[in-house]
Each structure stands twice: as structure tokens, then as C-alpha cells.
């Protein structure tokens, strides 16, 4: 269980890193390495060169703006989880992060690295899709912003080109008074989700849902925004029959086929249960925010 032979580069600028990637189609960016190194130890990944970006000062840190939290490429999960400003403007982040592996993994693994790996069961891609965030890709021909829904294309596949670096991810803050919730079904704590569901919603003065955002991971080859369920719930008081309708409307979103330990039917039932719980929890929190 040792990686096969590879070259190693430690650039100190984004441009230098991009030029290495542009000159070698089999070079791979190394950030925290918590997914890449196991894959290399298994020899499932055999990059020609690792481009270690930890020494690029421009790729470190978190910037909390009025509308969006900018998470730079070398920001570790644990930094995002424990940042007090992030918790103030988007308390969903810390709730989601409790489910990402274990603290020693979160100490090393990066948020953007997880987005680039694009495991459809992982929490960070779901969070970006749920919030309607984006990433910034920088390559030899400049920068472009890619919306979350366009970034995740398929299983472990993103819209990033081989010579591009995702320099940052942009997670929107929660609007004032919004409620939030995330939970997942796993066989063991810290595993990838069998199914995970996140919800952000706002209530109007009459207690009706004025805006509902719902997304799930583990049900398809990408994280999925549950648009039909959102539309079904918007304008309702989020009662039992409204939840029934939302669950029914999201059944078709489960496309992951039967696997040895998890059938598609099980995933669909877990999705329905999580939608009910997350919408209810988010609505309770939105109510508490109003009365607080």
C-alpha cells in the first residue's frame, strides 16, 4: 500500500502551479490529500506529478463578505467548521461539517479538494449545490466562475479542465431569519452518506414558506437540488400533507441503482424521511429566529 512513482512540485504562485498543470496532462493538484493519498496508496490514482499548492499564499484563508463566504483552495475543513464569522452568517456550515469524516481528517482535508473530488455522496458538494454557490476556476486563459449546478457533471467528474485550478469556492450566506438543517443516513459515523439532505427555508409573516431550498446527496451521480419538492412546499404552511406531496415529488430524483448493501427503494425511503425531518427542523429554527 505505497503510491507508485511520481514527481513532486511545490509552486509558490497560482500562475506557476497552472503552468505545471498545462505542461503535463497527468499532473494532479495536491491540497490536503485526504482523498488523493488513499487513492494513490491503493494505486487507484497514478499521477505523473503532484502539484502541492500548500505553499501558495494566495490560496489560503476564508473571507466573509456581505453575501458570500469565499473559501480559498487550501482552507481545511476544520478551519471552515470553527470559523466564528462563518458560523454567524451561515450556521448550516458547522452542522454539515460534523458529518465530514473525523477531526484528524478534517484537520488536513480541504473544502475545495472535496468539491473537486465530486463524490456524489459527499457533504461539501451538497452544501454548495444547496446554497446555490459557485467556484472560481483559473487556467492559462484566465478565470471563470462556474455555478455549482454546472460544476458537478457526473460521478467524480466536474467542469474543471485539467489545466485549471479551483482557486476558491463561494458559499452564499443565509438570508436573515432563514432556518436551516442537515442530516444524513450512514452505516457508521463519519462515513460517506447513504443519503444526506440539507434544507434552508424562510417563512413569511403568516407562517408560509416564502423560499425553500432542498438538496440531497447519495441519490444520483451528482448532488441534486430537489426543485420539484421546493416548488411543492413554497407557499404552504409545511404541514403533513405538504410534506407528503414534497416527498412524492422527489421520488424520481433517486436514480442511484441497487447496490449490494443499499437498494434504490431504501434510498428513496431514507430520502423521504430526511426531507420530512429537515424541512420540519428548518421551519422550527426559522420560527425561533423570528421570535428571538
Amino acid at each position: 500500500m505505497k503510491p507508485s512513482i511520481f514527481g513532486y512540485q511545490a509552486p509558490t504562485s497560482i500562475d506557476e502551479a497552472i503552468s505545471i498543470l498545462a505542461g503535463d496532462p497527468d499532473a494532479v493538484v495536491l491540497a490536503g490529500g485526504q482523498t488523493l493519498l488513499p487513492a494513490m496508496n491503493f494505486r487507484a490514482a497514478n499521477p505523473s506529478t503532484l502539484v502541492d499548492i500548500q505553499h501558495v499564499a494566495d490560496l489560503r484563508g476564508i473571507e466573509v463578505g456581505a453575501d458570500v463566504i469565499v473559501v480559498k483552495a487550501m482552507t481545511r475543513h476544520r478551519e471552515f467548521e470553527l470559523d466564528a464569522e462563518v458560523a454567524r452568517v451561515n450556521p448550516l456550515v458547522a452542522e454539515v461539517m460534523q458529518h465530514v469524516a473525523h477531526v484528524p481528517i478534517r484537520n488536513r482535508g480541504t473544502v475545495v479538494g472535496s468539491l473537486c473530488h465530486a463524490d456524489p455522496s459527499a457533504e461539501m458538494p451538497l452544501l454548495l449545490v444547496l446554497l446555490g454557490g459557485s467556484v472560481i476556476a483559473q487556467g492559462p486563459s484566465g478565470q471563470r466562475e462556474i455555478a455549482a449546478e454546472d460544476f458537478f457533471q457526473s460521478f467524480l467528474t466536474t467542469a474543471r479542465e485539467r489545466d485549471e485550478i479551483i482557486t476558491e469556492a463561494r458559499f452564499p450566506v443565509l438570508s436573515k431569519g432563514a432556518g436551516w438543517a442537515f442530516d444524513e443516513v450512514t452505516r457508521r459515523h463519519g462515513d460517506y452518506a447513504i443519503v444526506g439532505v440539507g434544507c434552508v427555508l424562510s417563512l413569511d409573516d403568516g407562517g408560509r414558506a416564502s423560499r425553500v431550498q432542498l438538496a440531497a446527496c447519495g441519490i444520483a451521480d451528482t448532488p441534486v437540488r430537489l426543485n420539484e419538492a421546493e416548488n411543492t412546499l413554497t407557499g404552504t404552511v409545511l404541514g403533513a400533507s405538504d410534506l407528503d406531496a414534497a416527498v412524492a415529488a422527489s421520488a424520481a430524483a433517486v436514480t442511484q441503482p441497487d447496490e449490494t448493501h443499499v437498494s434504490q427503494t431504501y434510498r428513496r425511503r431514507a430520502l423521504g424521511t430526511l426531507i420530512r425531518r429537515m424541512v420540519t427542523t428548518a421551519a422550527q429554527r426559522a420560527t425561533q429566529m423570528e421570535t428571538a
Partner: protein
Amino acid sequence: MARTMKAAIPDRSADAEVDVSMTVNGEAVSRSVSVRMLLSDFLRHELGLTGTHVGCEHGVCGCCTVLLNGRAGRSCLTLAVQANGYDIRTIESVAAADGTLHPVQQAFKECHGLQCGYCTPGMVMNIVARFEEPGKLDLSDEGIRDLLSGNLCRCTGYLNIIAAVRRAAELLGRA
């Protein structure tokens, strides 16, 4: 007569080497190693610090947990070259020079928190890292289980390790 020429034996390995320097248990070390050498192997094979154990080599078992700049991390999921310039602490640094056990180690001893001991160095480093963080410790069963969730033990059934974490908190005045 051979139909093809045998490839000549190369005079040196294709495995690229790199100079790495770091502080390990307070001591500056420098070595020239393969870029693909894992930090766990660097500690064990280059420095002879075999207290850091290697179980799964893909980040699941937690045996190889060490402190990287004060934070717990998997030495099997870190290349030695990635740790260039880091401050590394291993299980060898935890007890005092005269052999006096660290309170976390003492608690494991008192509570029978180990049997074969294979997972213990990783457990201890992970717990020591959490105890060194400021703020209140969550000493509920759930909080301790969450702390230990990244470390596998195949002997104890964990209950004695949970007890050891609570005992360590008492010994350190953090209960």
C-alpha cells in the same frame, strides 16, 4: 541469438528524491528521501520512531495519528515532503523523559484502556490534541465517542477507552 536486446539495468532508481527538514519531538531533522515516502514511514524507517503504528494506510484505522503543527492528522495520508517545515509530535514525546506517564497514558493504564496496544499511540495522540485545544471538553458519552470515532480498536470494545478519556480529564483538571 536473442531477438531483442535486454534493457540495461539503470544505474539509479527512477524514484525522485527530495530534501526534507522538519522538527520532530522538538529536534530538527533533515533527510533526503523519496518523494513518495509517507510521513508514517519517514518517522518509523528514517528516524526509528516506531511508536507511530501503521494499520490500514488509507486513513481509516487512526493508528498512525500524529500531531502536525499541534493538530492531529494521519501520518499515512501525508507525504514526508508535505510535512517539510512542520512541527511534528509523536507518541515518543508524550511521556516525560524520566518515564513518567502523561495523564492520558496514566488514565489508559488505570482504566484498562488497552489490551494489545496497537491502536493506543494513535488514540493517545488524538486525545492529547483535543485536550490541548482551548474551550470546554464534551465529556458526554456521545462527545467522547465522537472524539474517538476516527480511531479503531479491535480489543477493548471502547468502553474502557471512554472511561480513560474521562479519567484523563480528571487528572488534567478538565472534568
